[in-house]
């Protein structure tokens, strides 16, 4: 065993150990980030679907009550939009810190001209948007699709 061999072996091992440590470090941080995003995705999913379900159930109850009272539809579509906002406020449980929920009348901000033209003759509807951690989920909720009004 010569000194040169020892030095060479040490150098090779040190380089490999250093590269390996860097790769492990970056893999672990990627993993952590992916896990955080995954958790955020599940939270956002839960928030969005819970609110959509609350709206759906409230709409079904409203339609049934109107049917029992002999009315064909409970309200006008514009009234239905305001009613939906109220229902969302009632159903709103505290959101996790990272998740924000918004409602907006279409066209949604990111859609612009194409959607504006497409939705010009559509009955009024609300966009339910949930976002956080750079993830955004949005779903349309149209009162007419749930029997709340007739356009």
């Amino acid at each position, binding site marked *: 065993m010569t000194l040169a061999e020892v030095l060479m072996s040490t150098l090779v091992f040190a380089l490999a*150990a250093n590269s390996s440590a860097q790769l492990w470090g970056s*893999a672990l941080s990627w993993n952590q980030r992916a896990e955080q995003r995954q958790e955020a995705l599940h939270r956002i999913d839960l928030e969005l679907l819970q609110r959509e379900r609350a709206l759906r159930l409230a709409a079904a109850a409203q339609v049934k009550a109107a049917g029992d009272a002999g009315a064909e539809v409970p309200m006008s579509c514009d009234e239905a939009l305001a009613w939906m906002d109220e229902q969302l406020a009632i159903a709103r449980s505290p959101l996790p810190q990272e998740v924000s929920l918004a409602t907006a009348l279409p066209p949604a901000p990111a859609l612009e001209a194409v959607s504006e033209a497409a939705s010009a003759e559509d009955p009024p509807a609300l*966009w339910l948007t949930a976002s956080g951690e750079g993830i955004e989920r949005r779903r349309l909720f149209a009162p*007419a699709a749930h029997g709340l009004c007739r356009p």
Partner: protein
Amino acid sequence: MALPRVLPVPSRGAEAGFLLPLSFGVSLVLLLSALSVQTMALQGSRLAAAELEQRRLDDALASAAEQVAARLSGSHACLLPLASELWESAAGGCAPGLSAAPVLSGQVDAAAWRLVSWTPGVPGAAARPGELRLELSQGKVQRLFALDVAGAAPWPLRVVGLRGIGR
């Protein structure tokens, strides 16, 4: 006369060669294990991205179903009792000149959708929801939705509920 015994002399070459291959071997194992962990992390990120994309496609289809159901509860309510194959030819109860195009395809949130089929539902005591099948033109993802209808003759049918029922 006894022959002199030759003792084995350790070979300098064999002794000298063991450290370098050992360090190469250990280094290779270290690097390969780190690379495999990195590959697994990449795969995890890719799966998370695919899951997000899948949920967004679901959102787009659910939004498209809301749009179609809303249109079918308005001026296109006359199409509710007819299967979608008949919409173009036999829209008898509809206003003259009414086109079925707005309920056959459209765009919601930058995603283009297409109605694959509509099977009419039955209102009343033996109620059965209508089945609406939609697909996104990007990726050819399909979903099935149930559309509850109400109404009795002579009044036209109307939409009273919408929910997703799977693929």
